[in-house]
């Protein structure tokens, strides 16, 4: 029906149809389309960021050896004869971090999942500001393109780490300027998006949907959006200051008396390199929770649905999340323990760091206890959610020795840190993203993904991702620094642990292969997956009461829902079926 109408209109009035297509699928103001746009773009960036890492892993496993097969693809200034140069390695490192955090994971958990699900879960017809929503996506898109342009700059893309510490970043090649411009776009996009989500949740909740009836996912999105809204402006300011340092000769981050390569630097001086670190981490620590909270939200939804019982300790999870949000603004300087802090300031930041572990423990424990007494369906989404718990647990626990300054002295800036935060975001957040994709795919496409391929994808990913990240703890304890172009081969104290590099690299490449079943599944199921009804998983939250996509367009619900009960009324004693939707009277 839809197709025939399209065909007819294209015969009748070609230009009109073109315009309609553009407004419907490209410059759409429908939150569902924008969510899908975010999702597809961010998945492409996720894949790209992963590719950068696979290149780095070649150099780490076989330092100085020419990369086989694809060596011809690279220029003289990056990989002459297939041998990676340190500058390019540093570019890859900086861009891997930037792309994964700002262009892949945040856009996925907030831009894609948040955009698509928040209005549906609160029973709204759309976001509060649909045009702002569209602007948010396109500003993000431009920011992403700008970031990629960096690779074609003389001297390559930004190569001062994703943290871009000055003075190194101030004296770096042009790629850094492009990086800063890109960041300004990405930050702006996040600010637009987060305002929208906050207003939507606060103002547009369906009748009866009181705060303690909100699905945990929406709670997580609300707190996340506040973090974005309050934490990003300092970084935007910092980015502009660094741009000025680079372009107009100011010295916000440049102290006096710098001697670079034997020459006294001709600058005004008087600035502070540490100022940047404070501004950067004031964002980037809350940013960690931006990466984690929505992931916990996804996991909570998947677990409640697949255990067929309410979340255990829902209220304490909500309070813990809010508390986490507040406290996350007070821990930033634990990234800077070794910048010359005295005992007092140091005691403050390690105390807040220990305090913030408590709400994380509460949420994780509640999720784990929620499994008890359930009737667990181990589908692909649930497998990823279940694996998330111990993986995120490892990520969290390894934060302890880093958060205590005395044990951090030896571990700071070693591979231990890399292992720690990758456990949080890779088998943590990214597994949650996979769980979310498997879980909501039927809602978005009207078809379910293939379970067999999903399970292959899961088990292989679980094995290989641990193969990459676990050995990092060993290297880190041995004192191998991060961001080394040769993976530590220059250092005597690293020699005994170099063999792990090859192991980690092979795990990384196998992990890439393990994504093939997912990619196949993702595209095949779109057209020929098992047909799914409106409520494929017998779920309770409002998004499942709306018609399955292809959606109703701007409007979402045939009947604006009224909410009568909490979000996870599964297996209520005395009911015939094991789920009671929120909007069921």
């Amino acid at each position, binding site marked *: 029906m839809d197709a025939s109408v399209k065909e007819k209109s294209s015969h009748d009035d070609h230009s009109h149809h073109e315009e309609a297509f553009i407004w419907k699928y490209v410059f759409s103001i429908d939150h569902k389309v924008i969510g899908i746009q975010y999702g597809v773009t961010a998945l492409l960036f996720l894949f790209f960021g992963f590719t950068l890492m696979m290149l780095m892993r070649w150099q780490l496993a076989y330092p100085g050896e020419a990369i086989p097969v694809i060596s011809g693809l690279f220029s003289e200034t990056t990989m002459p004869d297939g041998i990676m140069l*340190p*500058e390019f390695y*540093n570019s890859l*490192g900086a861009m891997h971090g930037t792309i994964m955090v700002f262009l892949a994971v945040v856009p996925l958990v907030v831009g894609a999942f948040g955009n698509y699900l928040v209005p549906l879960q609160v029973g709204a017809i759309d976001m509060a500001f649909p045009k702002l929503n569209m602007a948010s996506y396109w500003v993000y898109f431009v920011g992403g393109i700008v970031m990629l342009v960096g690779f074609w700059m003389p001297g390559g893309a930004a190569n*001062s780490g994703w943290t871009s510490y*000055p*003075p*190194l970043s101030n004296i770096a090649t042009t790629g850094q300027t492009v990086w800063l411009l890109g960041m300004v776009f990405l930050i702006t996009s996040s600010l637009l998006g987060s305002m929208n989500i906050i207003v939507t949740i606060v103002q547009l909740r369906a009748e009866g949907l009181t705060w303690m009836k909100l699905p945990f996912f929406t709670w997580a999105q609300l707190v996340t959006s506040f973090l974005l809204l309050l934490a990003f402006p300092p970084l935007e300011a910092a980015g502009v200051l660094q741009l000025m340092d680079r372009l107009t000769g100011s010295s916000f981050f440049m102290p006096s*008396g*710098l*001697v*670079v*390569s*034997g020459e006294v630097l001709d600058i005004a001086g008087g600035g502070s*390199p*540490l100022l940047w670190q404070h501004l950067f981490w004031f964002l980037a620590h809350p940013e960690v929770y931006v990466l984690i909270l929505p992931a916990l939200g996804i996991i909570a939804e998947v677990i409640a649905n697949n*255990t067929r*019982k*309410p979340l255990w300790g829902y209220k304490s999870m909500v309070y813990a999340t809010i508390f986490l949000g507040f406290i996350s603004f007070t821990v930033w300087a634990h990234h800077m323990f*070794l*910048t*010359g802090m005295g*005992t007092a300031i140091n*005691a403050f930041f*390690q*105390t807040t760091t*220990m305090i913030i572990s*408590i709400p994380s423990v509460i949420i994780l*424990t509640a999720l*784990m*206890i929620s499994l*008890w*007494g*359930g*009737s*667990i369906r*181990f589908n692909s989404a649930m497998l990823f959610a279940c694996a998330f718990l*111990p993986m995120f*647990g*490892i990520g969290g*626990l*390894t934060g*302890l*020795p880093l958060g*205590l300054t*005395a*044990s951090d*002295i*030896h571990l700071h*800036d070693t591979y231990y840190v890399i292992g720690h935060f990758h456990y949080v975001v890779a088998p943590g957040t990214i597994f949650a993203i996979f769980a979310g994709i498997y879980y909501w795919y039927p809602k978005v496409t009207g078809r379910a993904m293939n379970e067999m391929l999903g399970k292959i994808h899961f088990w292989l990913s679980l094995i290989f991702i641990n193969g990459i990240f676990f050995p990092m703890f060993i290297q880190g*304890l*041995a*004192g191998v*620094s991060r961001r*080394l*172009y040769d993976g530590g081969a*220059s250092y*005597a*104290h690293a020699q005994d642990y170099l063999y792990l590099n090859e192991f980690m690299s092979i795990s990384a490449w196998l992990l890439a292969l393990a994504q093939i079943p997912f990619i196949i599944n993702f595209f095949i199921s779109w057209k020929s997956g098992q047909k799914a009804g409106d409520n494929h998983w017998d779920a309770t939250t409002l998004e499942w009461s709306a018609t399955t996509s292809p959606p109703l367009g701007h409007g979402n619900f045939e009947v604006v829902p009224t909410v009568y009960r909490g979000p996870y009324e599964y*297996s209520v004693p005395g009911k015939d079926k094991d789920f009671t939707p929120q909007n069921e009277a």
Partner: protein
Amino acid sequence: MSEWILQYLYLPQDLSSHGHELDSLTGWVHLLMLILFVGWGAFYLLTVFKFNKKRNPSADYKGVKTHVSSYLEITVAVIEAVLLVGFSIPLWADVVDNIPEETAKDVVPIRIIAEQFAWNIHYAGPDGKFGRTAPELVDLSNGNPVGIDKNDPNAADDVTTVNQLNVPMNKQILVKLTSKDVIHSFFLPVMRVKQDAIPGSEFPLKFTAVSKGDNDGKYEIACAQLCGLGHYRMRGYYNIMTQEEFDAWMGEQQELLKAAGEDDGW
């Protein structure tokens, strides 16, 4: 217990007077992590085994009814508080923040000035006083990497080396750390010492080597903060010497200084 777990933690040899305390904290934390992980893991495995759909076809609306988890959370909080207040904060105050006077007895003051991609070591010499330095006097090709003002009388016996940090055993070494250009991080794995070198500021740090260790005193300085294309090769050498060896070396350097005294500073 912490000793037991330390053998499995791959830490490099510790040759410092303070490192053992840091290591034992690292050990205790890892023990706590292990207990929590194994405890949670056992509960988790039991749960996913016991409550899968086949074994338990209908879910229990209420689930866990006890508040054991609250006690667990409180226990974790208490242990963290103990580690924090009992170990980490006092250790930091003692190991990092309690800096001796430069002129105190048995303290060897050494300035370390990091640059892309080398560690410049500046010894005060027998007089124990550093000569004046200035950025415009830096000359890399002619043996004045830290920009010592040779007209300053205190500078006459100052010794500089590049990438070679020689220290006497059982003396407290007081390092004053800074950088010429970008941020570096001074890392001595065997000393459990790490401190960012930040241009524009000078930070003190101290350590005492108590043994030459398995490698006869020959170890390395690593750079722990990305500082540019040569970061991976910004390796210095850390040589632990007996007092006699150190004195002999310092004497040798003084001879060389005298010989080079007429060096025209080209």
